């Protein structure tokens, strides 16, 4: 198996706070990795470091054996790294279709000289419509993102990220905010996409869902990696259970879900 993404000793410091304290893991082509951990563990920061929105204080990020640590997010996107945001960030001034069309036109927007002479959006629009249909929000194509319910906006994030034809897709809680039917559908779509060859990292709080679709997990706690391995083994790891149980989350009880899903 070839390593598509490698994170090496990544340390991220925000002012005096250590968000990630030297995390390493690697991802083989075609993998679907679940990235879990209690709130504030550094999961989102980890994905932001991989896409390049956050620059690590120390450590390296490699995509297909190429050191991208110093590359800007747009350059990494062109290497095939795509991100969906936990807190949705649609372009509010563009229609739902145009949000995805813009991303689908990455080959045209990469070079300014090409961008200024290219006018036709036909092919990219068609691709965008396919992707909207794939995530199940084709009916919203011509709407403004402002009128969409959160569940649809989460799916727009996924469609837009897919539009840049990613090699590795970073999914920051794509299922949160969806009802159980929507979540099951999107989870199935993601599993299909993974089967079709897209490598993925998925942040998800619902451990039952994670256990269902991710064969491998990396667990972060307080900016450190505390577990990395096959899902069942990781969820049975006493250290992982302790990390979840030690956290005072009202109502959610992921520890129990973990135990349930793991057993």
């Amino acid at each position: 198996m070839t390593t598509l993404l490698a994170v090496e000793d990544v340390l991220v410091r925000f002012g005096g706070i250590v968000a990630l304290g030297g995390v390493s893991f690697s991802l083989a082509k075609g993998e679907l990795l679940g990235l879990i951990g209690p709130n504030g563990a550094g999961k989102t920061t980890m994905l932001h470091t991989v896409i390049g929105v956050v620059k690590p204080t120390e450590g390296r990020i490699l995509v297909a054996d190429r050191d991208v640590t110093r590359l800007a997010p747009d350059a990494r996107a062109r290497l095939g790294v795509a991100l969906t945001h936990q807190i949705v960030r649609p372009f509010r001034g563009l229609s739902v279709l145009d949000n995805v069309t813009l991303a689908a036109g990455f080959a045209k927007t990469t070079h300014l000289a090409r961008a200024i002479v290219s006018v036709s959006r036909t092919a990219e629009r068609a691709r965008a419509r396919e992707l909207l249909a794939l995530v199940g929000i084709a009916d919203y194509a011509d709407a403004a993102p402002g009128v969409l319910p959160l569940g649809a906006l989460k799916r727009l994030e996924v469609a837009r990220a897919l539009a840049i034809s990613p090699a590795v897709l970073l999914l920051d809680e794509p299922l949160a905010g969806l009802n159980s039917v929507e979540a099951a559908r999107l989870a199935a779509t993601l599993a299909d996409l993974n089967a079709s060859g897209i490598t993925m990292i998925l942040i998800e709080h619902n451990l039952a869902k994670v256990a269902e679709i991710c064969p491998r997990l990396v667990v972060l706690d307080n900016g450190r990696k505390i577990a990395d391995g096959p899902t069942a083994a990781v969820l049975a790891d006493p250290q992982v259970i302790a990390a979840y149980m030690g956290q005072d989350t009202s109502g959610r009880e992921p520890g129990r879900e973990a135990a349930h899903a793991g057993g």
Partner: protein
Amino acid sequence: MIGAYEITLVAVVSINLMLALGLNLITGFCGQVSLGHAAFFGTGAYAAALAAGGLSLPVVLVLAGLVACALGLLVGVASLRVREDFLAITTMGVGFVFLGFVRKQGWLGAEMGLTDIPDHGLGDIGFVGLCLALVAAMAALSWHIKRSWMGFGFAAVADDERTARTLGINAAAYKLAAFVIGTFLAGVAGAVYAYFTRFIIPSAFGFTVSISILTMVIVGGVGSIWGVVAACVVLTLLPEFSRVINDYKLLLYGALIVLTMRFAPGGLAGLVRSLVARRSTGGAP
């Protein structure tokens, strides 16, 4: 036929249109607020005044544009790390630096400015034709950019720069492109101004010019070409036709900015769009 007064009107309106279309590219399309547009206008005017003696008119126009956009590129690079309100203040500073510099330079005529700029040699009709042709060309360029993938990229950068970058758009390059093209247009406008007045003084390129042009862009509706053109024509001609409005021009412009921002952030274009939408949905009360 066409008298001196009409020629003045056409020239003044055309120059403002070129400035407004240029600023609309930077502020309207790409979302980068600039309060220093007059500096690029002035740079073009001074470049043209110095070059007009030895070079032909088309060469001078292009040269003035290039000199202005070289400065635009410089300011753009310096501004890449600042956003929104900080960018506005930085560009305002550039405007003052330009004035402060020009006022102390003997070779630029200092406070007295540059005089005896050669005649354009086109005749009155020719000059009016040149003005209108340049405005038409710049409007067409704006229209093309807006439809192109570059304009699409500008819209994304204006909307959410960080997200645009994660989708493969080099936001820095797009912002620089907007600055370069927009300031090139301002430089050409400066050259036309120099040929028109045949003498230039620093105060013609002051902060109030930057603000006036920004008013036209905001009132017209940032990003809307026809809205900006309409607002620019009306706001340029009103003070010409009414002495009272001319006396209170800055008051009027200031009030228009405040009212537009408060009640119709989309400007003229936004108002028309919502009227059309209301009519097409069957006239909600």
